[in-house]
């Protein structure tokens, strides 16, 4: 008998699905909200960073002029000749200039000396923005007499007051004010090179203008008419090229600053994104168990005639709505957190950062959060298709269909593609995006693998002779529907982040500090004029200090590489010679032998003095040669203070740059540079901070032009820089850890029914509240230890790999921080676990059972 297929006539509408979704969520709304709250922190991180970027972009636009302080800036790395000077005098409507260089200053009151950046300023720069000083008018006052503006941190460090004097070279200046902010400067750049401003007209008298030292001259121009600037700029372009002058305009500075910030914000966005992914994985895990619990209800609905799609939609609606709620809460939190971010990154950016509500950022963050949570929730939700109405009669035995797995694979692929697209959006290169996405995937797989391995190892070696409570607490990690691995992955990833970050920081510090070991040099004197050489050496010896090195240094530029000059290199990229090789100054030395930190890798090192008529055979640092694309036998032309000097690469050396010592990329043979303008460098070692201070004071007093690099100071500065950068990263990493903890709470809630049953059973069997409490404490401690252990294990592996392949140093993991991180995470996990379990343990069992099911 043929019969028409029967199809539903009046399908219940969307409203009914909504109603059912609402009804069905009764009794599990707290739990569901908790699952979805796993995305709150991830979305918050994204919204906070998106909003920050949004505002900073605007801030850079608005403050671009203040960043530069002028409309046009020209920069020269050596004293300008009269032709350049003449050209400069024709530019702009108003002009200022400065000369900056590293020099020692002394605070006579306390006797402190330190290497700073001296800036001799002429004119009324800045034309936009202003120096922020205490007192406020100090920035104009200091230009009137023999006065200086001194960086705030410097003044605090040496306990100097306004009105005290500071010695720069041969002259004493009265401190007119404390400089808190200068155009374009960041807290970080100030930490590295604290500035001291003096009027330009005293520069000559300081006696610091010696040939061979490194000076940067900047010319600042103010234009009333931007057209005029563009005209003049294109007119002088050839001169700039020829003289090796750099220029910056407001537009180029805006671009540079913007790019620097984009790098930072991309990096932070990706960290936030990882937090979101962690949350989503948590959601997938929780929903999976939630759906398993809902199987009977789903089967009943199907029995009553609900279609597969309808049933599926009921749960999809629940999850999607809560995803919206979670993302919205995250957006609110993110907008609030954004107010804190300027505090975190203010030292890294040269702009004043504004904050506020950015609807676009909120929309982006919420959108990403909703889509991500939807897709991740879809993975477990798809198993609804497997639940047959037959389940009402008996538990199913047949496994899921092939089509089912296919759907899940499809969703998984979509997730992967979206992750790649998102990272591509952040990173602007497919390769980077693929590497990053692959990295995330690999990290998750690796974490899962290590977690599984660790868990089974612990299980095998777990002492079964321990008392019941311990065994039960441990066994809980293996209970049916356990989320152990999920939690280990989510919390472990946070631990891994923090661990790796710490190790890298530690390695950087150790690498520098290593040279502070016994008998390694720790003080470098430079800018020693040829006439001072013998006297300085004398002074060092008078202080009973060793002279490790006493070397001449000649400053030069590269004019040609293999017959290509800067212009040709820029035009013709085929040669592979980087155009920037021609920028900047090169400091070279000349000697007839290798030092103990060098090793010949190719060619022959020239030991004989150069004889005229022969080519000049120079020796290059191996990796430097690689960058310039030159090898033994290639020709180069150098420009030594205007004089062209052809040379041939005679040998390559491998240089151990890790020592605190003067090393050189280029070494000339004897007999070539002896008459060139040069200065000397003396390397020595001071046994203590007191000796160091006394020696530095004496040196600066006798030879004010000499600069001193003190390893102790370098370490301090590095430490501070790392701390400032590290703080930003740690702040963002905290989101991952916190997300892991939210996932922990969610998974405790999801297993609540089961836990209540266990508790009831244990209590019926006579277990006291205290014993049940102990079992749970132990369970979460084990869990935290497993997570922290997994994460730290991986970060140790990462740290080792970095030290081996990137830092070229031996990896000695810091013991105490590892222990601290391990126990903090364990403790935090146990604490959160206990807070969530509290009401389960303390309420009368029957009441909970009635309420929860």
């Amino acid at each position, binding site marked *: *008998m043929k*019969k028409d*297929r*029967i*199809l*539903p*006539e*009046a*399908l*219940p*509408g969307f409203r*009914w699905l909504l*109603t*059912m979704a609402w*009804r*069905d*969520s*009764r*009794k*599990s709304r707290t739990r569901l909200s908790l699952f979805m709250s796993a995305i709150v922190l991830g979305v918050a991180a994204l919204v906070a960073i998106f909003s920050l970027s949004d505002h900073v972009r605007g801030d850079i636009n608005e403050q671009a002029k203040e960043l530069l302080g002028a409309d046009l800036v020209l920069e020269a790395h050596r004293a300008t000749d009269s032709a350049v000077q003449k050209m400069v005098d024709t530019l702009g409507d108003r002009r200022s200039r400065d000369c900056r260089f590293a020099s020692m200053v002394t605070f006579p009151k306390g006797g402190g000396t330190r290497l700073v950046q001296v800036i001799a300023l002429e004119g009324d720069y800045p034309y936009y923005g202003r120096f922020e000083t205490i007192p406020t008018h100090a920035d104009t006052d200091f230009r009137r007499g023999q006065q200086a503006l001194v960086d705030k941190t410097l003044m605090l460090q040496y306990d100097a007051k306004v009105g005290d004097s500071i010695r720069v070279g041969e002259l004493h200046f009265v401190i007119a004010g404390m400089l808190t902010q200068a155009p374009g400067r960041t807290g970080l750049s100030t930490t590295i090179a604290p500035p001291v401003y003096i009027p330009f007209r005293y520069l000559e008298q300081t006696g610091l203008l010696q040939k061979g030292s490194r000076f940067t001259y900047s010319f600042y121009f103010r234009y009333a008419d931007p057209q005029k600037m563009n005209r003049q700029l294109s007119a002088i372009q050839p001169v700039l090229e020829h003289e090796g002058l750099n220029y910056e305009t407001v537009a180029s500075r805006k671009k540079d600053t913007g790019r620097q910030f984009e790098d930072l914000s991309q990096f932070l966005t990706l960290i936030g994104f990882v937090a979101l992914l962690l949350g989503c994985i948590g959601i997938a895990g929780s929903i999976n168990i939630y759906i398993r619990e809902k199987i*009977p*209800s789903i*089967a*009943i*609905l*199907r*029995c*009553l*005639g*609900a*279609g*597969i*799609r*309808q049933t599926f939609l009921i749960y999809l609606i629940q999850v999607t709505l809560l995803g919206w709620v979670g993302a919205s809460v995250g957006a609110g939190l993110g907008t609030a957190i954004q107010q804190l971010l300027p505090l975190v990154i203010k030292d890294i950016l040269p702009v004043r950062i504004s904050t506020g509500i950015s609807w676009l950022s909120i929309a982006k963050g919420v959108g990403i959060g909703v889509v991500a949570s939807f897709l991740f929730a879809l993975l477990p939700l798809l198993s609804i298709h497997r639940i*047959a*109405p*037959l389940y*009402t*009669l*008996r538990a199913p*035995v047949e496994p899921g269909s092939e089509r089912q797995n296919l759907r899940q694979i499809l969703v998984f692929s979509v997730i992967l593609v979206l992750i790649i697209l998102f990272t591509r959006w952040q990173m602007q290169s497919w390769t980077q995006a693929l590497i990053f996405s692959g990295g995330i995937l690999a990290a998750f797989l690796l974490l899962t693998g290590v977690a599984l391995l660790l868990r089974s190892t612990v299980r095998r070696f777990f002492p079964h002779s321990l008392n019941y409570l311990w065994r039960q607490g441990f066994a809980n990690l293996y209970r049916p529907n356990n989320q152990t691995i999920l939690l280990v992955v989510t919390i472990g990833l946070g631990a891994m982040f923090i661990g790796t970050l710490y190790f890298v920081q530690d390695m950087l510090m150790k690498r520098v500090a290593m040279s502070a070991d016994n008998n390694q040099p720790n003080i470098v004197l430079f800018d020693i004029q040829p006439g001072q050489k013998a006297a300085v050496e004398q002074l060092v010896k008078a202080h009973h200090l060793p002279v490790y090195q006493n070397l001449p240094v000649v400053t030069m530029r590269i004019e040609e590489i293999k017959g290509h000059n800067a212009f040709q290199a820029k035009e013709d990229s085929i040669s592979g010679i980087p155009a920037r090789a021609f920028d900047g100054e090169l400091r070279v030395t000349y000697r007839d032998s290798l030092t103990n930190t060098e090793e010949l890798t190719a060619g022959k090192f020239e030991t004989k003095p150069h004889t005229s008529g022969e080519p000049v055979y120079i020796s290059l640092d191996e990796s430097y040669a690689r960058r310039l694309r030159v090898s033994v036998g290639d020709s180069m032309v150098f420009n030594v203070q205007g004089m062209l000097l052809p040379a041939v690469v005679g040998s390559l050396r491998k240089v151990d740059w890790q020592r605190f010592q003067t090393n050189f990329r280029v070494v000339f043979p004897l007999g070539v540079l002896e008459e060139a303008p040069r200065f000397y460098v003396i390397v020595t070692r001071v046994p203590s901070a007191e000796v160091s201070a006394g020696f530095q004071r004496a040196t600066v007093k006798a030879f004010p032009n000499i600069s001193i690099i003190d390893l102790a100071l370098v370490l301090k500065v590095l430490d501070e820089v790392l701390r400032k950068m590290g703080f930003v990263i740690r702040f963002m990493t905290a989101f991952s850890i916190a997300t892991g903890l939210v996932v922990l709470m969610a998974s405790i809630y999801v297993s609540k029914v089961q836990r209540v049953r266990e508790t009831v059973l244990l209590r019926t069997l006579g277990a006291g509240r205290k014993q049940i409490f102990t079992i749970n404490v132990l369970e979460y401690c084990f869990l935290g230890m497993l997570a922290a252990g997994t994460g730290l294990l991986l970060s140790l592996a990462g740290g080792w790999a970095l030290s081996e392949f990137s830092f070229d140093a031996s990896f000695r993991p810091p013991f105490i921080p590892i222990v601290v991180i391990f126990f903090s995470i364990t403790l935090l996990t146990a604490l959160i676990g206990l807070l969530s379990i509290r009401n389960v343990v303390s309420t009368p069992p029957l009441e909970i*059972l*009635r309420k929860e*099911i």
Partner: protein
Amino acid sequence: MMDYMLKVDRLCKSYQSGARCLTVLHDVSFTVETGSVLAITGPSGSGKTTLLGLCAGLDQVTSGTIELNGLRLDNAGEEERASIRNRYIGYVFQNFQLLPTLTALENVMVPLELQGKRNIRPQAVELLEKVGLADRLHHYPVQLSGGEQQRVSIARAFSTHPRILFADEPTGNLDEETSSKIIPLLFELNREAGTTMVIVTHNADLAKSTQRIIRLKGGQIMEDKPTGDTTPVVQN
């Protein structure tokens, strides 16, 4: 005009468990007249639940045909069967199977809502009043006793005015006293609605009060005979 509400012809059901094939129903054929009441009895494991599940479209046959209300169930797709279940079939389970997150009233309303009907509340309330739960409308299943839950389940089964009602040991999970109240209720509602009913039971008295008894054993029909009793309701 249709004489038969349910027509089962050479029905076989087997389960594949690993390499072994377990045949649960062998060549089962029978028909159920429209408006009649049929009892299925047989020892535990004889395939009663399996048979009922197949007839109600909850599972797929291995071979043979099932025709319900003139519609072929055996070759209908899953969504189609869902629609047939919703429109023509009522099912009372041994273990009630109420939705735990819905109140008694909502549980009764769901099948009607699935049909896209409106203003169904009075109808559902009336049904619950009939099964004696007028004051328990807004209670959740966990707040009801077993007997009360089964009353809700019966009300739900009748809510859509199904053509045929399947009841699988409706009192199997209840004590005798409660059972003795549930059964008359079921029969009374059935008589009122004139529904065709197939009931699985171990209760010989109950079986006798139907028009026909099929005795199942080892997945085969051992006996299929009318009871001769013309009054289908037991009077306690």
